[in-house]
Every structure is written in C-alpha cells, then in structure tokens.
C-alpha cells in the first residue's frame, strides 16, 4: 500500500465539442499545485511590508459600472429641461461669428423710464445670460478650440454694462427719494406721518386776471404758490 497523496489528473481534460465548456484546460486544477508555499513571501522588516492575508471577499469579483457611452442612445433628455437655460441654442460652444452677433447695452436714459418691476426682470435676464457665458467660458478653456474668447468677452461686457445701467438708474431714483425726504421734513405743506394727506397746500390762491376792455392793463399779479427749493 503506497502512501502517495492523490493528485488530480495532470493530463488536459478533453471535452467533446457539444459539451458546455469550450476550454481545454481546467485552471482550477493547477492553482493548488502551483500555490505559493512560502507563507512569509514579501515580508520585510526594512520595507515594513506585512504578511499576505487571503481575503474572503476576493472570491467575489467586483461588478463593473455601466458606462454612459454604451447607453447614450437610449437616454432622451427632455427638450424643455430647465438646465437648457445654461446653453445657447442647446450647443456646447458658439462659434466666434455666432458670439459676435449681439447688440449694444441698454443706456441709462432708456432705463430711467422703466419701472422697478421691468428693471428687476431685465436684471434677471442679464444674470441668466451671464450664467450661459460662464458655462461657455469653462468649456472654451477646456477645449482650447482657438479663437472665440475675445468675442465672448465683448458680449459679456454689454450684458454687464446693462446691469450697471440698471443700478445707475435705481441709485439715481434712490438719491432723488432721499432728497425729497429731506425736503419734506422742512416743508409745512407735506406731512408723511400717514394720518393726514401727504400734500395739503394752504397759501395757494387762484385769482384769474380781469379780461374786460375798459379795465386798465395794470392788474395785480396772481400770488404764486410757495416757491420750491429744488
């Protein structure tokens, strides 16, 4: 009776072609034979490398994440998605010619006539347009396509000038209101407390001049209202 250890067959397993496995080598048959019998392999005091420990989790391979490129055809982006507001014409980057097609900024004269609601709406239109320009700037710095930065800067300048004009008009209005407040404090006709009407003039008398032909030309001048200090 021999004490030899039973070893798996070393001959290549020949499976018939109509079998499930197409491999002619059973790799699991060789791992036990060719295992690393040195348990202190790689352990070094100088390099402070530890002993190799077999992890149970190594038996289960990690799942591969799904790649976007493979499934891009299936994905449909909603054409009315709010984030399209960060792009012009749903494009990543405009050409320099497309970017240079813009008008001038609003002038302060034009903006003075607008109400607060209109000015605030215009401000938000400018803010959203600047968001588009920032998105394009980031993409342009990444792509480095050549030209286009100059045209984009010019366009952004017009938008910022419009915003500046809006603030200018609003500041002017605020200063006028502040001055009016100061005048109202000294003016006896004006009462901003809220109890009585705001403007109640006392010394204003309306006297129409005599228009008869016999009456002399000298007529007393109608008394003027209180002169304003504006």
């Amino acid at each position, binding site marked *: 009776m021999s004490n030899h250890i039973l070893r798996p067959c070393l001959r290549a397993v020949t499976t018939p072609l109509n079998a499930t496995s197409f491999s002619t080598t059973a790799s699991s048959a060789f791992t036990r034979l060719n295992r690393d019998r040195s348990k202190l392999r790689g352990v070094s005091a100088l390099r402070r490398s530890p002993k190799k420990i077999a992890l149970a989790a190594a038996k289960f391979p990690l799942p591969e994440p799904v790649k976007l490129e493979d499934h891009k055809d299936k994905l449909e982006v909603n054409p009315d998605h709010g984030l399209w507001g960060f792009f012009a014409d749903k494009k990543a980057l405009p050409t320099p010619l497309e970017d240079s097609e813009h008008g001038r900024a609003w002038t302060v004269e034009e903006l003075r006539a607008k109400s607060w609601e209109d000015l*605030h709406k215009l401000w938000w239109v400018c803010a959203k347009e600047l968001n588009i320009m920032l998105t394009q700037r980031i993409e342009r710095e990444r*792509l480095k396509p*050549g030209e286009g930065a100059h045209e984009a800067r010019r366009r952004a300048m017009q938008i910022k000038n419009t915003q500046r004009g809006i603030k200018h008009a609003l500041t002017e209005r605020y200063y006028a209101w502040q001055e009016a407040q100061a005048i109202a404090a000294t003016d006896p006709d004006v009462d901003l407390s809220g109890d009585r009407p705001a403007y109640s003039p006392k010394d204003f008398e309306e006297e129409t001049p005599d228009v008869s032909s016999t009456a002399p030309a000298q007529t007393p001048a109608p008394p003027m209202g209180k002169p304003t200090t504006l």
Partner: protein
Amino acid sequence: MKFGTKQVFLPNFSIGLLRKPHLPPNFVQFIVPLNLNKLDLKDYLYHAYGVECLSVRSYIEQQKIQYSKPHLINKRLEWYRPRAIKKMTVELKEPFIYPEEPENLAPWGKDRVEQAEKTNREYQEGFSPDAKKKPSPVRSKLRDRMVYFESMQNSGKVQTESIEVEKELNV
C-alpha cells in the same frame, strides 16, 4: 429659512455648469460663488430654472500658488494664491446630459492659432543659448525650397538656359 421665502434682489453672481462625463445623467456639477450654500443653490435652480433637486453636495478646491501677472504700477512680481473654487454636485429629479462637443473646430480657426503659436515658439527658441547647436528651422525650409526648385527644373516648365535679349545693331 423655509424653501422659497428668501427674497433676493439683483443677484450679482454667476453659476457655471461643468461637463462631467463620469457622472451619471441624473447628476450635474456647478461652479458656484464661494459664499453660496447648498440650500441657496437648490432655491436658485428651482426658482430661476424650474429644476428640482433631490440632494446637493459641495466641496471647495484650493488653488495653486502662482505668480501675479505683470502690472504697470506694481512691477514687482509676487506670489499669491487665487481665490478657492466651490463646486456643487446636484442630484436631479429629471436627467440631463451635457451637449456634445463640436466635431469640426474649423470655425474656431484652431489650425491658424496653432500655426501662429508654433511660429512664435520657434522664434523664441531662436534666442536660447543652445539655439545654434540645434538645426535652425530656416535650414529645413531652404531644403524644401531646393527640392521644389529641382522638381520645377526637371518638369521642363521652367526655362533653364539663358536667352540673349540684347540685339547687335549695325549702325
């Protein structure tokens, strides 16, 4: 503050959308101002763009120290650290994919710009101390000219023999 109750008038900042190919379609990343918070961004996206967010995460990137740009007044170049960049990743209710890159970069004149940069670089390299050790680009261009000239001569279209123009006058 409750969602939607914070009133903001004349906001003076911009938000940029980043292209992130490795993020799934229901995630999108923005560059935001440094003093904006997650709640503000959620509010902003909903009220300005009608985009609903499920969650927002943010992080701040410190920038590398760099030399200041040359200035007319203060000519001394100084090291400075540019302002940090704040980025926020938003989980969307509805997916969104960043539009594709332009295929043909000809409208942006990439070839022209690259050629100009190459010419500039070669000119600058001509001033370096070991420029004379390297073969100058002019020599290669001369070689090209010689090749062209020889090919023209051999083609027979160019006149190689000299023709006497002056005529002898018998006065």
